[in-house]
């Protein structure tokens, strides 16, 4: 059943090899290899074709893809031209590989990648947030200029805190609401950096929209940074 198979050093197989059990290739195989057990390709072994198996241990030459349900291990002297995919992939010093390498089925890694990706998008949205704030701010200014400053001060801290915390779940929902609002002002996005700098001061200006003092901008940023540190603490 799971009897070990060996393809000797003096043997050449041109065709497909498949089935159950493990396989040791010391000779040459010109074709695909697909077995349920482990595959060992000796230093003198050569395979031209796809190799499928549980654990692939390669010291010879392979021209084709390697897929291991458990692992793919390239030992010193191995030469592989083709894609490698397995939950565990090992490439020893002295092994040569050319192709795409992918470690599948590792939930921890996959999970880690997703949150980081989410966090990155979080970065840009905050810049947009001030723009969004602009539209609501204008009406507010007309209604209650005095109350605004307090609100403004309160608002900035939560936003930066979310970003700093980089908590994957909390930021997205909070960011989501601003996005729709942002869409309207989006056209200004075309000139992203400069306009934002000009607009950000608007927040402090809210109470006094008459003059836009440039020095206020650094103040805002300083305040945000300080709050960030506090939130982190």
């Amino acid at each position, binding site marked *: *059943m*799971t*009897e*070990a*198979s*060996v*393809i*000797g*050093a*003096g*043997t*050449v*197989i*041109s*065709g*497909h*090899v*498949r*089935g*159950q*059990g*493990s*396989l040791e290739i010391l*000779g040459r195989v*010109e*074709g695909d290899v697909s*077995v*349920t057990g482990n595959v060992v390709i000796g230093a003198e072994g050569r395979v031209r074709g796809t190799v499928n198996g549980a654990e692939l241990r390669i010291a010879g030459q392979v021209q084709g893809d390697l897929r291991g349900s458990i692992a793919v291990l390239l030992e010193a002297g191995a030469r592989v031209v083709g894609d490698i995919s397995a939950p565990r992939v090992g490439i020893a010093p002295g092994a040569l590989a050319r192709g795409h390498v992918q470690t599948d089925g590792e939930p921890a890694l996959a999970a880690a990648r997703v949150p980081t990706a989410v966090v990155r998008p979080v970065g840009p949205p905050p810049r947009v947030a001030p723009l969004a704030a602009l539209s609501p701010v204008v009406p507010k200014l007309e209604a209650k200029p005095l109350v605004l400053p307090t609100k403004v001060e309160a608002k900035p801290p939560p936003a930066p805190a979310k970003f700093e915390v980089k908590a994957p779940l909390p930021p997205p929902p909070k960011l989501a609401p601003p996005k729709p609002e942002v869409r309207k002002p989006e056209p200004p996005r075309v000139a992203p950096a400069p306009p934002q700098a000009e607009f950000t001061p608007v927040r402090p200006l809210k109470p006094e929209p008459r003059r836009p003092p440039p020095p206020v901008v650094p103040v805002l940023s300083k305040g945000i940074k300080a709050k960030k540190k506090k939130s982190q603490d």
Partner: protein
Amino acid sequence: MAGTVIGEGLTIEGDISGDEEIVIHGNLRGRLTTTDAVTVGGTAVVGADITGASLSVAGQVTGDVTASERVDIQAGGKLVGDIKAARFTIADGASFKGNVDMEV
């Protein structure tokens, strides 16, 4: 130990060629050529023309056989095909169908 062993669960579709002993316990469809001995185990199913120094059959072989030395069909073995060999034995309990050429 034999140079090449095809395990019981293994199937090869294609040609095997080499210069060392070959033992087959699995399945082979194609062609088998070697300069050394060939052994077809009891669990093997071979549909291939076989060329080698000698051939021992305990399983099933369908195909023409050319051996430079000898061919032996063991008890329980089954061979369907033409045989060309200097020596040829069929054990009691073996089955065989085909022509024999012993190069008299």
